[in-house]
């Protein structure tokens, strides 16, 4: 201690003992604690009891043998047996415990496999139903007078609403995390965020894209692009970097129009500020974009008892 306190300093070490006896070298308190534990590993009482017995023997002539009390050995054996019981019980209980944990895990694994099989089965069922719907609608349209017009309508609406898979030429925008995602200043701005992908998709629509998909997830009217923790979800499916945004449209104008759109400007800005990497290419070969999942369609219905609003001043006149 460098601190030298006056006599009244409460922090002053009580060094009267040190001055009276030759001062031992200053020691690290933690080390001396460990040393003491090591030095007293053998219960000091053993030595004390031994000395006591030796003294007793010295005074009263040859006394009892060391540790030779009549019930001593038996008592020792009993206590040692107790240790054995403890050890045995511990072994058994820890084994049953680990067996329980294992069986529980097996049960969960089996459950997961079962649920996955169920999902697969349902996915197959959906595909079969979709095919059936397509077949039936074709049949119905063929039997109708204005069927061909209707079929065309359905086809073009299907493209626009992303309920049918489409193929065609267009553009490919690849967006990647920065080389060192956490290095660019604060937190994880070097990562591609949901807002970046939203801007890219909006920019592609602006540039005249007819259909857009991110890593094979088609963007439909009900698609959400959002971050959950560190991953971006598209159609509730996690997608990871590099993000390949494919857009079907005119391959000659789409890339340049995209660069001139708000989305392109956004991408250039974040690539400068956060180090995201991106590339834009026109694709002349046909790309296949799958259909977007169709959620449950909801229709608005008039609330009961509320007729059309006829009052003046409401709504555009």
């Amino acid at each position, binding site marked *: 201690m460098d601190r030298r306190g006056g006599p009244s300093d409460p922090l002053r070490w009580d060094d009267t003992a040190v001055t009276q006896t030759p001062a031992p070298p200053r020691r690290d308190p933690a080390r001396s604690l460990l040393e003491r534990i*090591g030095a007293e590993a053998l219960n000091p009482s053993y030595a004390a009891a031994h000395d006591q017995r030796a003294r007793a023997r010295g005074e009263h002539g040859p006394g009892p043998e060391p540790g030779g009390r009549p019930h001593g050995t038996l008592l020792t054996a009993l206590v040692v047996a107790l240790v*054995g019981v403890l050890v045995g019980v511990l072994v058994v209980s820890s084994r049953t415990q680990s067996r329980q944990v294992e069986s529980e895990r097996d049960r969960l694994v089996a459950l997961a496999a079962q649920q996955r099989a169920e999902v697969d089965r349902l996915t197959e069922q959906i595909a079969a139903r979709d095919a059936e719907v397509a077949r039936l609608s074709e049949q119905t349209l063929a039997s109708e007078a204005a069927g061909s017009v209707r079929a065309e309508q359905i086809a073009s609406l299907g493209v626009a609403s992303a309920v049918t898979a489409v193929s065609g030429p267009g553009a490919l925008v690849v967006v990647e995390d920065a080389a060192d995602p956490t290095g660019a200043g604060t937190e994880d701005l070097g990562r591609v965020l949901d807002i970046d992908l939203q801007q890219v998709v909006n920019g592609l629509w602006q540039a005249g894209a007819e259909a857009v998909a991110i890593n094979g997830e088609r963007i439909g009217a009900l698609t959400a692009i959002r971050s959950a923790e560190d991953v971006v979800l598209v159609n509730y499916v996690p997608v990871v970097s590099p993000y390949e945004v494919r857009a079907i449209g005119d391959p000659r104008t789409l890339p340049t129009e995209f660069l001139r759109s708000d989305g392109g400007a956004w991408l250039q800005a974040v690539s400068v500020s956060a180090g995201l990497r991106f590339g834009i290419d026109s694709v002349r070969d046909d790309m296949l974009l799958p259909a977007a999942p169709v959620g449950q369609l909801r229709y608005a219905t008039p609330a009961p008892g509320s007729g059309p609003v006829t009052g003046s001043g409401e709504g555009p006149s």
Partner: protein
Amino acid sequence: MIPVLGLVAGIVLGIVLDVTVPASLQPYLPIAVVAAMDALLGALRATLEGVFDDRVFVVSFVANVLLAMLIVFVGDLLGVGTQLTTAVVVVLGIRIFTNAASIRRLLLGA
């Protein structure tokens, strides 16, 4: 010799009996066993050094086991059960190692 037989008999008994430890005692059992092992190794070393005393052994065994469990119990009440368990295991572990090393020196002379 008799104590060794007692230990073997105890282990066999403990396994055969197949006692289910109540869940509330579950965290204290390992600590009790570590404390017991410490007392046992101390006794073995004392025997080899010729200073063994059964009264000291029994008292130190019972007191150590109960104290170790009590410390962990109090720690659990205070919300520092894991930390105190670690502290107890560290102290007892050092003692076990030191005693084991002494026994090794006494038996093998190395």
